[in-house]
């Protein structure tokens, strides 16, 4: 049972434009969410997090939005750069020390 879903397997965006990656979850107990970026043959790299007490968190070009009522989060990258081309995973958990549940990833291609 997939508790975290990324319904878009791929996304292409022109350099300089906004990239919006979406993630939905089903478990209302989730209270902490992460976005990871992954290049082939490497481990996931932590990008940004958000806890359920917030609805927005910003770090440079990356902003994560959380809509708890819709059980939806999104990652905005502005402006997109070719180096952002990678697979992006969202992940969610609850409590301290618990496993994260991962989505199946969205492959982002930023076209120069």
């Amino acid at each position, binding site marked *: 049972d997939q508790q975290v879903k990324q319904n878009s397997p791929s996304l292409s965006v022109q350099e300089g434009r906004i990239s919006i990656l979406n993630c939905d979850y089903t478990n209302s107990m989730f209270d*902490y969410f*992460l976005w*990871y970026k992954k290049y082939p*043959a*490497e*481990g*996931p*790299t*932590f990008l940004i*997090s958000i806890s359920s007490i917030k609805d927005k968190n910003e770090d440079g070009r990356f902003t994560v939005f959380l809509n708890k009522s819709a059980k939806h989060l999104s990652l905005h990258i502005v402006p997109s750069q070719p180096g952002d081309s990678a*697979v992006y*995973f969202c*992940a969610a958990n609850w*409590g*301290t*020390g*618990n*496993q*994260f*549940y*991962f989505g*199946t*990833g969205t492959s982002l291609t930023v076209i120069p």
Partner: protein
Amino acid sequence: GEEVAQTPKHLVRGEGQKAKLYCAPIKGHSYVFWYQQVLKNEFKFLISFQNENVFDETGMPKERFSAKCLPNSPCSLEIQATKLEDSAVYFCASSPGGDTQYFGPGTRLTVL
């Protein structure tokens, strides 16, 4: 260290042989997690540790898989009598306080 280290990078075993994977978490991190990535984009949780104690082992196939995190030693994940379906990339992650997890580069296990 400042990064999670995993060894070896690649491991090839014949079916029925033993495989042992190692993980050195980031210094000062109390939690260690193991995930298995079988299909390209699916992460399956295996086990977690808080210091040297098992925190959650609900994902472990207990008949053949075992794991340890002993003081002053790298953590290890051991598979006795490997099967073809164990072929995967195994990721280790560490966390300072049980929230954000930082991943290593992974070990690719191929069972022939």
